[in-house]
């Protein structure tokens, strides 16, 4: 994998909300085709990092490179084009309430491609069947359960065959069985479509199951305290917080 150019390169990223510093000079790389997990305790800036990686908020310092190109220095048009190659699954699915599930999934196709209604219909059907929601296409998000909304959001995020998929806490609020199914789905998408996947989570079981590599953020140092394969981190980590996280222990001060 050494000869591969990184798909995403986060360089010296610093973020603060008003006076509070959240992330300080964070640097890491995501390789193409890997499943990369960002983990850490609640409130350590995982979601903040994700929001900056997908270009929703400009960082105070540092930048993000996609395939070697500086995201925050490129022209807006180019940035928009690049963003179409991302798929993002937000924490609660973020389906538009005024559209049915099927229309939600069809939305990127209707807006961004010139496909006919027939083909859009077929693609929506394929994607919905992938997440097991083909019989719910005519329902509005308000009529769906939390897990269904999340899976629907995933179908929408995948509909344009993105090169990079971002997941914000995919397993939060799901029952264990659905969680496992979602993990399988993530592995499947990664394996069969070769999609690069970035997952923000603190679900230990998921991490061990899906993560190729992971970084752990920490709210005290406001940066990365561990990087590597999850099994390695569990077995060899020295840092007390990393140890506590992977072995589900209390931190002894």
């Amino acid at each position, binding site marked *: 994998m050494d000869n591969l150019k990184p798909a995403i390169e986060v360089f010296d990223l610093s973020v603060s909300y008003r006076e509070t510093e959240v992330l300080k000079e964070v640097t890491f790389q995501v390789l193409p085709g890997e499943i990369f997990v960002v983990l850490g305790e609640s409130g350590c800036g995982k979601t903040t990092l994700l929001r900056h990686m997908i270009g929703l908020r400009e960082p105070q310092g540092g930048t993000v490179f996609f395939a070697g190109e500086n995201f925050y220095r490129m022209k807006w048009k180019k940035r928009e084009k690049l963003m179409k190659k991302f798929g993002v699954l937000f924490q609660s699915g973020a389906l*538009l*309430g*005024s559209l*049915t599930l*099927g*229309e939600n999934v*069809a939305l990127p196709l209707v807006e961004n*491609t*010139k*496909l*006919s209604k*027939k*083909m859009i*219909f*077929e*693609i*929506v*059907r*394929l*994607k*919905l*069947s*992938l997440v097991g929601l*083909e*019989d719910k*296409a*005519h*329902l*509005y*998000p*308000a009529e769906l359960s939390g897990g269904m909304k999340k899976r629907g959001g995933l179908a929408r995020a*995948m*509909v*344009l*065959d993105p090169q990079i998929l971002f997941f914000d806490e995919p397993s939060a609020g799901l029952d264990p069985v659905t969680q496992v199914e979602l993990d399988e789905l993530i592995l*499947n*998408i990664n394996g*069969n*479509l070769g999609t690069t996947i970035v997952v923000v989570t603190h679900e230990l079981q998921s991490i061990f199951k899906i993560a190729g590599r992971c970084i752990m953020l920490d709210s005290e140092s406001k940066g990365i305290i561990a990087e590597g394969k999850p099994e390695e981190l569990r077995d060899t980590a020295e840092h007390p917080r990393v140890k506590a996280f992977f072995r589900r222990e209390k931190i002894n001060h």
Partner: protein
Amino acid sequence: MPFPIHEYLQIEQTEDGNVELTLSGRLSFSTVEPLRNEIEKALKKRREVKVTVHLDQVEYIDSAGAALLFHIKRYCRKRDCETVRGRSNVTVEEALKLFDLEKIPEIKLSPEKSGNIIVYSGKLFIKSAQEFIELSLFIGRVFLALMWSLRHPGRFRWGEIIYLSQRTGAEALPIVGLLSLLIGLVSAFSSAVQLRQFGANIYIADLIGIGMTREMGPLITAILITGRSGSAFAAEIGTMKISDEIDALTVMGIDPHHYLALPRIIAVMLMMPLLTLFSDLFGIAGGLFISVATLDLTPTAFMNQLGGAIGLWDVASGLLKAFVFGILVAGTGCFRGLQTYGGALAVGKSTTSSVVSGIFLIVAADSAFAIVFHYLGLM
């Protein structure tokens, strides 16, 4: 540049009438559409034949490509043709592994709509009846909350009332003042032309004075507050409702009618008469300005005439109306907010209907006041 269809698609007919499709190159979002057209055209006239699809020359296939294959299959089934997967390669097999083309059932994109007029009017009737019940419940609950608060004045949210009074009253002053001044100006200006023809210049004071205090003042204020505060209540409470905050209040043993609706209704009820007083004042000031500027009246003459024209009852009846309008406006806002169910769309709907039904109620109540005052001899 026309799409080079032959680089992607070869259609051959075998001797026994069957069809062989050979797809090649990249099957992606940008290429599937012309391919679909061509294939449909080729299969249109054929029935009950075997269609073999060869995929061994495909270099790349994405979801759109998979959708195309799936579409071919369905299109054939509709024409009683049988489809067979012919030669294939690793790329295709890998990509199609995710989808089980056999198993994917039919889907509906949008809910079915029933177009029957009887069904429709029936639904409308049920909806109106439900709404009437909900409204009665809302009024009852707010009234109970009020009674409870009167017995437990210590538990009442006085701070909230002061805050809401500032938000709905004091902060609305500039816009109420400006709008009333402009309406005073406009109505004085348009009547000045008529009055001058009869040499009745001085009666402009009566016209503006009575018009503003009895009707225009309360109406302008109420309509403004509907748009400004009633809608805000509906949106705020509606958003709380869809994000489960109202349910959270309820299970904590806090009645949302007492906690949210009552302070809002009381604040607006108290602020409306005060705002109306300001509206009267600014409206009359507008009239005064036009009288002096275009009708050659002196300010003193205008004020003297005004003093004779309007009595205490004219102002008081306006304030009484404003008080009632305030209850209607805030009540409608809170009611629509609590009725909200669903998502962002529902919040928009409640906000709209809070303004629409608020303004309707104001005008209806105004007419009722006119009739009642007339029969009581108070006009």
